[in-house]
């Protein structure tokens, strides 16, 4: 459903992304791996319209997303979370979700939850609905990022390290939540994660970025055995 075509991005002289191409199949869970600074979050920002690429294009089906402002990308059915959380701090958790419900995708999938209560239940925030978003713990704020993104009624949901800093039990909960989002709502999920085990367990497909370039792509088992991936993660043998 989503096609990334030869995306490149330079910040001044620094190349953050170079010639990155891949296709995300409909209803898949698509993992993006890579060390810090590999360009993963930059890629999400480009897809969401927060950043303009230096070269290449992103397409959602037949629609060219590149060049559209963020709100048009959201209207097309693409949502993202922020790795460094950006809740509407002065609003309550419920108001955060309600705001996203009033905007977001133009054509909501039939299975998308239409009310805040459903979304807060799914993301485990129902007990915190009335609290100001700024007063939540970091783990709760990460869940609020997911809740707010879901409330936009997306066809494609991009999750940026929503498991970082969680306990193993919370990671298991989050894995179950992501599976439910795909199964119950038919949402395609792209996921950046440092928790390798979680990413391997969840993803149908994985792309590995290293210094802005794609070094491997394929099913998780195959990618894990790839020599280029091993050397990028574990260091080259000298």
């Amino acid at each position, binding site marked *: 459903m989503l096609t990334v075509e030869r995306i490149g991005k330079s910040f001044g002289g620094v190349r953050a992304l170079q010639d990155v191409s891949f296709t995300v199949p409909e209803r898949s869970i698509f993992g993006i791996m890579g060390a810090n600074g590999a360009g993963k979050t930059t890629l999400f920002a480009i897809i*969401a*319209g*927060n950043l303009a690429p230096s070269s290449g294009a992103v397409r959602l089906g037949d629609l060219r997303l590149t060049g559209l*402002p*963020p*709100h048009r990308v*959201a*209207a097309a059915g693409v*949502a*993202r979370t*922020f790795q460094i959380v*950006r*809740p*509407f*701090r*002065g*609003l309550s958790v419920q108001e955060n979700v*309600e*705001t*996203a419900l*009033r*905007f*977001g*995708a133009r054509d909501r999938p039939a299975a998308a939850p239409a009310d805040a209560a459903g979304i807060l239940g799914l993301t485990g925030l129902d007990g915190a609905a009335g*609290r100001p978003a700024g*007063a939540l713990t970091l783990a709760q704020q990460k869940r609020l990022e997911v809740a*707010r*993104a879901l*409330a*936009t009624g997306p066809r494609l949901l991009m999750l940026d390290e929503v498991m970082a800093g969680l306990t193993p039990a919370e990671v298991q909960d989050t894995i179950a939540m992501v599976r439910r989002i795909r199964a119950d709502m038919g949402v395609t999920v792209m996921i950046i994660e440092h928790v390798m085990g979680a990413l391997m367990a969840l993803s149908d497909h994985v792309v590995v970025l290293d210094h802005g370039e794609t070094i491997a792509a394929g099913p998780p088992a195959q990618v894990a055995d790839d020599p280029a991936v091993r050397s990028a993660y574990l260091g080259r043998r000298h």
Partner: protein
Amino acid sequence: MRLLTTREAVPLLLVAAIAAVLPLLGSDYYLGVGFALFGWIALAQSWTIVSGLAGYISLGHVVFAGIGGYVLVLTWGAVPVWAGALLGALAAGLFALLVGLPVLRVRGPYFVILTFGLAEFAKYVVINIENALGRFGRLILGGPPLETLYWAMAALALAGTLAVVAIRRRRLGAGLVAIREDELAAGTIGVPTVRFKLFAFALSALLPGFVGALFVLRTGYFEPAQAFDPVISFTIVTMAIVGGSADARGPVFGTLFLVVLSELLWSNFPQVYMIVLGTLLVGFVLFAPNGVAGLFERRWRVRGAPASG
């Protein structure tokens, strides 16, 4: 349509009640105080649309009143009085649309300084035009009587209060608040940030244009340095801060509080008038950043349901 909530009904009823009561006192003094009070309410409510909801703090809102007043005197005699005032409002809105696109690209302190500078710039442009025309102040003779102006201004105050109530209920209001809280996140969840900001800015300029025209009709005189006086912008901000600008209550509470207080101080302690006002402003910013409305809320919360966390 949902019924009015308390926080929506209180400011609307308060404005309507004051408007109905003041003329019963049967004195031009009260009509004059009411005229000023409603003028400030209309200005502070308009300011709240762009600065309270969207968080873009304008320190140059006088420019819209100045433009409204100037258009009124320029069209004086050529069109009926109310058409001139309406043209003033439209001109202010149009001006906001034109300058909004570049001006609203900057945020925070830069926006504050830019709006202030823009208002000063407009003032000197008008001063120079008037000088070039050889006009040093323009007299307006035969304007509407005070009572008519009073009712017109009361209507503007009510319209401004209603506008803030209505915008807060709509998608526009939710989007503006999201922009205030986090503009990048707002755009990412689908808020058309550029369009909403521009629309809010233009809306927030319309009523001040009208108010400026009425101010000129009341004084019977237009002088650019006075019509574009930056102290008017500062006063709008002060009233909104003292009242609290999260919803339509703030501008009404703040304006009422300051206008009544300054009338009392002015007549009883003219020597310390400015000192007391300045101390109050500092006190509110330091100890009650959510203004009078916030103080009420806190009291109510303590007595009603204790807030958790």
